[in-house]
């Protein structure tokens, strides 16, 4: 390892090593960032799971306990309100699920608190809630038991009341007649129906009256006991039982005393037994009532306690919930803190990583490699460009430096070789170039010829319609006069056959002579028109021929003929087209020595363009009054002639008027014009020592002015400009 470092330090610092160091550094930074992120997420996750595992179920259980406590508190009065034991049982069965649910919630809460560990929890509150909840659940059971006990006591009390009522009836059944009898005896001395009345001193004695008084006392006391028992049965305040019982005891004492005073008879014996039993049962009734009231008191106390428990359970559970919420908040806070810290750390590490990567990139790739490669490449490019003079100045200890050194060696060798071969190489190159140029020139000429020929043929084709029209007139003449002549000859033949002997009369001779005169005239006309047709065909043939020599030509006739050809050619294309042609020919124009078919083609071209322009305008306008008009003027000039071809077409816009003589410039659709017409026309006129000018106002007119010199330059000087085109173009 140390060796490796030493080698690294001493030896050449290779690109691979440099890259490894760079990538290693970046990887180390990324790893560090990932570790920080991992740790942060771990902490966030811990906090969240603390919230989820601990606080949330606690809260749910606490809520359940709070809700359940309310239900249980409401259940208490329901139990106590039961009118019968059946009601109680039903209520108890219905309450049971709520109670079970409450206890389960409570147990769950206690378990959760136990799991969480009291020290980190608000233990006191949980214990309070737990204790109160258990008490609440227990109270409900106690209430149920108490109510059940109340029913038992009530049953016993009813039974006792029934018994007391029966006793009371039995006592009354004995006491009332006894009283009645005693009073009657005291008053009348009659004890029974049969016995005679007792003496007055016997029956109206103190003893008898006292007996009566005792019975009345008993009657009163038993009534008092009756009322006391009725009152005590209604009492709900335990304290008030005591004074009633005291009153009862007084009455009981009084009864006991009275019973003691009654004489021993069968009736009094039964009465005594009944009273004793009555008193005993009455005491029981008091005791029973006391117990009943105690049970009722206990129920009320339990209900009140439950209400209080529920009331305090509410804030306790609220406290728990608040504590849990606080813990949840703390945990959330911790996790968001962890998120913040992690984020900051990550950000810093990312910045560091990016900065490191940029630095490494800049250092190794930019500074150490790219710049030096660029230098090397520049050197190579210069060498390739022939500059072998500049030295290659790339230093260092790595592979690039090796390449630079090798290139330097190469450069020096190349410099030597270059100097030796330079002259020879230049000579050869020149020779080659010349040969190539010649070939190109030949090709160009061939191409030009081909183009011109094609133009010619195209124009010829176009022209055919015009030519055909021109020829048609003379041919018609020829045909008509031939027919007339033929008829005349038949006439002659008939005249000749009029006489059997073959002789001719004087009249006949004269007639024949007249016919012959007509025939002669006809033949003359046929000849003239045949010649005209011949001339037209010759002209056309001349046009098709490659070259022609100059000859004397009547310029007016030349112009006139080509106007006709061009017009009819245009009409052949568009039969709706009509053109008013005004000719103003200078009769003194005379002849000029020109290549007549070339010059004719120029006029053909100009008139064709005029036709096109006027037709365009006609088709483009709604103006009915527009009348396409062509004005052709010839003038004799001092040194030649001037021909003006003026149309009232659309004119030429100023921005293209400069370009109209350029070859291949055209405004016509691609398949209609070649763009060579005006260019060739200008060439032809130039060959005849003249020039073409243009005068135009857009939207009004175009006037092409052709000047032809009377003394044209030597034909050979302009031999290259042969040919031309009838094809319209250039506008």
């Amino acid at each position, binding site marked *: 390892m140390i060796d490796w470092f030493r080698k690294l330090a001493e030896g050449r610092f290779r690109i691979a090593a440099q890259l490894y160091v760079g990538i290693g550094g970046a990887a180390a930074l990324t790893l560090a960032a990932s570790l920080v992120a991992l740790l942060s997420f771990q902490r966030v996750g811990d906090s969240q799971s603390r919230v989820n595992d601990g606080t949330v179920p606690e809260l749910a259980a606490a809520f359940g306990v709070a809700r359940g406590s309310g239900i249980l508190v409401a259940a208490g009065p329901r139990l106590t309100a039961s009118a019968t034991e059946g009601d109680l049982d039903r209520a108890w069965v219905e309450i049971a699920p709520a109670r079970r649910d409450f206890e389960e919630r409570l147990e769950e809460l206690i378990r959760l608190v136990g799991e969480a560990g009291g020290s980190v929890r608000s233990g006191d509150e949980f214990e309070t809630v737990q204790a109160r909840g258990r008490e609440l659940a227990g109270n409900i059971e106690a209430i149920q038991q108490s109510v059940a006990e109340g029913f038992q006591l009530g049953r016993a009390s009813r039974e006792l009341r029934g018994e007391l009522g029966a006793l009371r009836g039995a006592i009354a059944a004995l006491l009332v*007649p006894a*009283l*009645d*009898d005693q009073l009657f005896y005291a008053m009348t001395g009659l004890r029974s*129906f049969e016995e005679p009345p007792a003496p007055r001193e016997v029956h109206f004695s103190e003893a008898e009256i006292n007996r009566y008084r005792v019975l009345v006392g008993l009657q009163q006391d038993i009534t008092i006991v009756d009322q006391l028992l009725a009152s005590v049965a209604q009492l709900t305040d335990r304290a008030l039982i005591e004074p009633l019982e005291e009153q009862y005891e007084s009455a009981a004492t009084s009864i006991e005393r009275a019973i003691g005073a009654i004489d021993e008879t069968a009736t009094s014996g039964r009465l005594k037994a009944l009273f004793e039993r009555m008193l005993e049962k009455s005491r029981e009734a008091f005791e029973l009532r006391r117990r009943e009231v105690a049970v009722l008191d206990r129920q009320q106390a339990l209900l009140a306690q439950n209400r209080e428990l529920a009331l305090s359970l509410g804030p306790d559970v609220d406290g728990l919930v608040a504590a849990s919420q606080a813990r949840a908040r703390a945990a959330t806070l911790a996790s968001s803190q962890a998120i913040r810290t992690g984020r900051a750390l990550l950000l810093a590490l990312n910045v560091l990583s990016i900065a490191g990567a940029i630095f490494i990139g800049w250092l190794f790739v930019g500074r150490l490699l790219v710049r030096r490669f660029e230098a090397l490449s520049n050197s190579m490019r210069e060498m390739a460009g022939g500059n072998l003079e500049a030295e290659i100045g790339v230093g260092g200890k790595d592979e690039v430096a090796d390449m630079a050194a090798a290139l330097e060696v190469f450069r020096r060798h190349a410099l030597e070789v270059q100097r030796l071969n330079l002259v020879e190489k230049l000579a050869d190159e020149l020779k080659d170039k010349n040969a190539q140029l010649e070939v190109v020139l030949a090709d160009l000429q061939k191409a030009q010829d081909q183009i011109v020929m094609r133009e010619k043929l195209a124009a010829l084709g176009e022209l055919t319609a015009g030519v055909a029209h021109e020829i048609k007139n003379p041919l018609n003449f020829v045909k008509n006069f031939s027919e007339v002549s033929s008829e005349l000859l038949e006439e002659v033949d008939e005249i000749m056959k009029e006489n059997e002997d073959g002789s001719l009369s004087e009249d006949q001779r004269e007639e024949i002579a007249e016919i012959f005169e007509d025939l002669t005239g006809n033949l003359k006309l046929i000849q003239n028109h045949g010649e005209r047709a011949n001339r037209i065909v010759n002209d056309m043939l001349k046009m098709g021929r490659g070259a022609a020599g100059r000859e004397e030509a009547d310029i007016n006739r030349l112009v006139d003929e080509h106007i006709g050809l061009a017009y009819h050619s245009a009409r052949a294309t568009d039969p709706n087209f009509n053109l008013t042609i005004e000719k103003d020919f200078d009769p003194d124009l005379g002849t000029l020595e020109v290549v007549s078919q070339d010059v004719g083609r120029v006029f053909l071209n100009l008139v064709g363009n005029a036709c096109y322009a006027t037709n365009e305008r006609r088709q483009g306008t709604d103006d009915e009054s527009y009348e396409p008009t062509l004005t052709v003027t010839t003038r004799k000039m001092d040194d030649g002639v001037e021909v003006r071809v003026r149309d009232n077409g659309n004119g030429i816009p100023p921005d293209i008027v400069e370009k109209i003589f350029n070859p291949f410039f055209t405004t016509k659709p691609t398949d209609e014009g070649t763009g060579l017409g005006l260019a060739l026309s200008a060439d032809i006129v130039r060959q005849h020592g003249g020039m073409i000018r243009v005068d135009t106002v857009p939207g009004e007119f175009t006037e092409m002015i052709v000047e032809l010199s009377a003394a044209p330059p030597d034909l050979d000087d302009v031999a290259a400009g042969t040919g031309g085109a009838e094809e319209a173009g250039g506008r």
Partner: protein
Amino acid sequence: MSVRKQTARSTAVLAALAALGAAGTAAAQPPAAPGVTAERVLFGQSAAFNGPAAELGRGMRLGIEAAFSEVNEAGGVHGRRLELLSLDDGYEPEGAIGNTRRLIEDEGVFALIGGVGTPTSRSAVPVAAEAGVPYVAPFTGAGFLREEPNVINLRASYAQETEEMVARLTGDLGIERIAVVIQNDSFGRAGLAGVRAAFDRRGMDPVAIGVYPRNTTAVKTALVDIELGSPEAVIVVGAYQPVASLVAWTRRLGLDPVFMTLSFVGSNALAQELGPGGAGVYVTQVVPFPTASRPRIAATYRRALRAHDAGAAPGFVSFEGYLAGRLAIEALERCGAEVDREGFVQALRDAGDIELEGFRLAFGDGDNQGSDAVFLTVIDESGRYRAATRLVRPAAP
């Protein structure tokens, strides 16, 4: 309408009827009133069958049953047999309340009939009224029952009986020293009120008032009380046992006022209790003599009684029971086949005059008492009753 549609509509109507259920009023088969089925109509009776007033309950039951048997033998009313369910209340208000509740709620009787006694009726009527159950022909003449809308009274009131007594005493005998002995309850007070009303009309006052406890024979205190007023006549408002006892003891004391007592006393039982000593005791009756030939219904009664119980002797109480039964039958017949409790009461209210074989009854709006007839009878030496056409002072023993 297509058959299909009709079927659908019928189904809908049936469904609607089913929805109306027991409450349905327009249903083709109206739910019968409680206690009424196609085969029978059940009546309930709460009366004394034990104790000092037991003869009254028994008599009423016997009479009602005789009437019911009679009509049942003849095919019932609108095809329904009439049945009677009797419960013993021992002449105690508590018992009457319990029985009435049981008869209405548990047994589902159509109507109550032949209740015996004023305090018992006073307790039972509100229970019956609350349930909308008719209370027919109670064996009492208490005034308050003449104002209850669900009560149908057969007999004349106590006030009418006492008026008859006072009228005869003052009219026939010119007696003005009259004492009153009453049972210490609402029956006694109802009787006393009747007597006082009769006295007031004549500007008189009772010379003495004696009181004895209900369901006892302890009447001697009352005897002592009235003796102090030296009455020429004593009107007793009580049951047969204490009345008999009072008469006996009064006579034992050597006193011989004219004794008069209300129909409620149970005439035959009283005569039996008194034995030979009962001669000259006057009893007002609200039904004709059960052994007489007029009105015709008396004979019908005797025939029905014999048919029902060959060993039973005719008597005022069972005759009143028989008339009560006949009244119920009359009302049911007037209701038609569709019987309900309101219609039952209304049938009698709307009937106006009803004649049960010569025994005339008249009802109307605000008049729920059928008969106003009071008959004064007297026990003769043979212990039998006869009509008291003219009062005589009893000869002193």
